[in-house]
């Protein structure tokens, strides 16, 4: 896709996201928009995608493991709910949720400096259970199983965002900012360092990359995204209790990243479609919809381990392989492929 086409596609996408749920019949366009529940589901998809972006950073880019994202979502949601009850405005609640999860995320990152793979997964699993028990048992703070109710949606410039569509637009704007921030982070030298951790931490360390520092940052930033998502989630549902922040939800975040395409920028959004929207689309099957959902997920993982984005890329991109005739050592393989006159080039300039 050339640059102009990309820009046009991007603008159309932005327009669809802004105007899609709205009733456009007043503008002479025969589109009644989405009903309240449809707008709610679309907002939930955005919130879920933000938390999944965090998992994608930790798992897909930095190559670590986490089964604690729902716990951070809970920390963010309860932080926002509690601060709102104390009269703190939404903007500050939102920031506080992210910052607290960032700090706790650093703490969770420390075990990752000692253990890897499934051992690390179990450490984060234990953390997830710990946070869930804390939310459930500390009634004086979180309301326990009764949760916290009447969480108001914010008022922005005198306009109440209580209507589903208005709140959707706020979440859409915040998601756009967080997505742009993630895009910028991943294109920065930090993004390359995260990829290096995933691909070969020992080599990365030998090139001067502070593996410890970047690992902690991956956990901290990824967890902060769950905190931001939690801050948007609490006013969306207006009532929170411990159940949405249990271990199962963390597994579902991992599923989203893997099903969407781990290490792919749009993977979390696609994965969130699978986890949030697909079950809704399958409701016509009534009692069988979860069974059909499970079968679709199993088939997806069996036949498309690189996720939906990976499948799409495979179908649309021609596999290119340079110098297929020069694979591996051979005594008679003089295929350097390079320009011999390049010998005149000096390295001195490269290091200047």
């Amino acid at each position, binding site marked *: 896709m050339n640059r102009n086409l990309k820009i046009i596609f991007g603008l159309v996408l932005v327009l669809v996201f802004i105007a899609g749920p709205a009733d456009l019949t007043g503008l002479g366009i025969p589109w009644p928009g989405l009903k309240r529940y449809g707008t709610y589901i679309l907002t939930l998809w955005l919130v879920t995608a933000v938390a999944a972006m965090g998992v994608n950073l930790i798992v897909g880019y930095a190559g670590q493991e986490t089964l604690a994202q729902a716990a951070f979502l809970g920390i963010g949601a309860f932080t926002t709910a509690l601060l709102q009850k104390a009269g703190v405005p939404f903007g500050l609640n939102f920031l506080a949720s992210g910052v607290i999860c960032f700090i706790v995320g650093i703490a969770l990152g420390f075990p990752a400096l000692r253990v890897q793979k499934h051992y690390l997964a179990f450490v984060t699993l234990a953390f997830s259970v710990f946070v869930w028990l804390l939310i459930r048992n500390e009634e004086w703070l979180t309301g326990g199983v009764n949760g916290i109710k009447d969480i108001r949606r914010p008022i922005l410039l005198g306009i109440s965002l209580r209507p589903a569509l208005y709140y959707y637009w706020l979440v859409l704007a915040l998601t756009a900012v967080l997505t742009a921030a993630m895009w910028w982070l991943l294109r920065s*030298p930090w993004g390359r360092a995260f990829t290096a951790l995933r691909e070969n931490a*020992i080599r990365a360390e*030998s090139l001067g*990359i502070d593996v410890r520092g970047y690992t902690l940052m991956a956990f901290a930033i990824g967890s902060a995204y769950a905190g931001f998502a939690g801050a948007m989630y609490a006013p969306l549902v207006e009532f929170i209790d411990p159940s949405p922040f249990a271990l199962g939800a963390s597994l579902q975040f991992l599923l989203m990243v893997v099903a969407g395409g781990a290490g792919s920028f749009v993977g979390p959004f696609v994965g969130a479609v699978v986890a949030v929207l697909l079950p809704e689309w399958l409701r016509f099957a009534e009692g069988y919809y979860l069974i059909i959902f499970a079968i679709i997920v199993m088939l997806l993982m069996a036949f498309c381990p690189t996720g939906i984005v990976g499948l799409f890329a495979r179908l649309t991109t021609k596999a290119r392989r340079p110098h297929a005739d020069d694979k591996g*050592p051979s005594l008679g*393989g003089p295929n350097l*492929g390079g320009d011999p006159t390049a*010998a005149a080039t000096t*390295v001195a300039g490269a*290091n200047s």
Partner: protein
Amino acid sequence: MNTASAALEATPASTAASKVLEVRDISKSFGGVHAVRGVTFDVREGEILGLIGPNGSGKSTLFNCILGQLTPTSGDVLVAGRSVTGLRPSELNRLGIGRTFQLLQVFPQLTVRENLILAGQEHEGSRFKRLFGPSDSGLTANANRMIDFFRLGHLAEEKAGGLSYGQQKLLDCAMAFMAGPRLVLLDEPAGGVNLTMLGNLKDRLQAINKETGATFIVIEHNMEFVMSLCTRIIVLAEGKIIAEGPPDTIRKNPQVIEAYLGH
């Protein structure tokens, strides 16, 4: 006497001043296995030192002790007179020590250029300055020069995982030199490389040594390669140095022949 040999004959005062690396009585044991036993040697500025020995002689363990991958059981490593024992590999790299590994260690999902930028980026300002700086850390031009120098120009935009084995070896070496290190430890650079590529690699290493004065330590089993590249050779057997000297002397040393042939 070649220039390198002449350099070795320098006065003691100037020799002391030009020491890049000092390995002092390094030992490393794994339980009851003594992999390295009291190894001591110096490496001088601009030198290409070969480290050879039969399999299991302790070469890679010694490398890993020098480079912070392993903590020595006893002894000390000094870089430019400063003790660096116990420092992490990333800290050593930032002190100007580069390395390559025995097995290929490039980042397959990154392009050749991105691999090189990655290899140099941690030397450009603080971590937070890098976060807010240009995405290439201002290293694209340097990476391009390194790509041309190692004759990989036509592959700059290719994913490293798609390169041939020999091309990946060249990239691996190029990455070690990207940050302009003063000392580079090469672990079997010739392993599995075809003859033409081997000549190319040797040519590039000698050119870097000549142009920048970078110092190398090379572990290698390919005797032809190591004898023609190195100016001095240390031979390890059973964790100890059994011989040290110019290639011609080492080639004829009876202890070395015995260690290799097992007589």
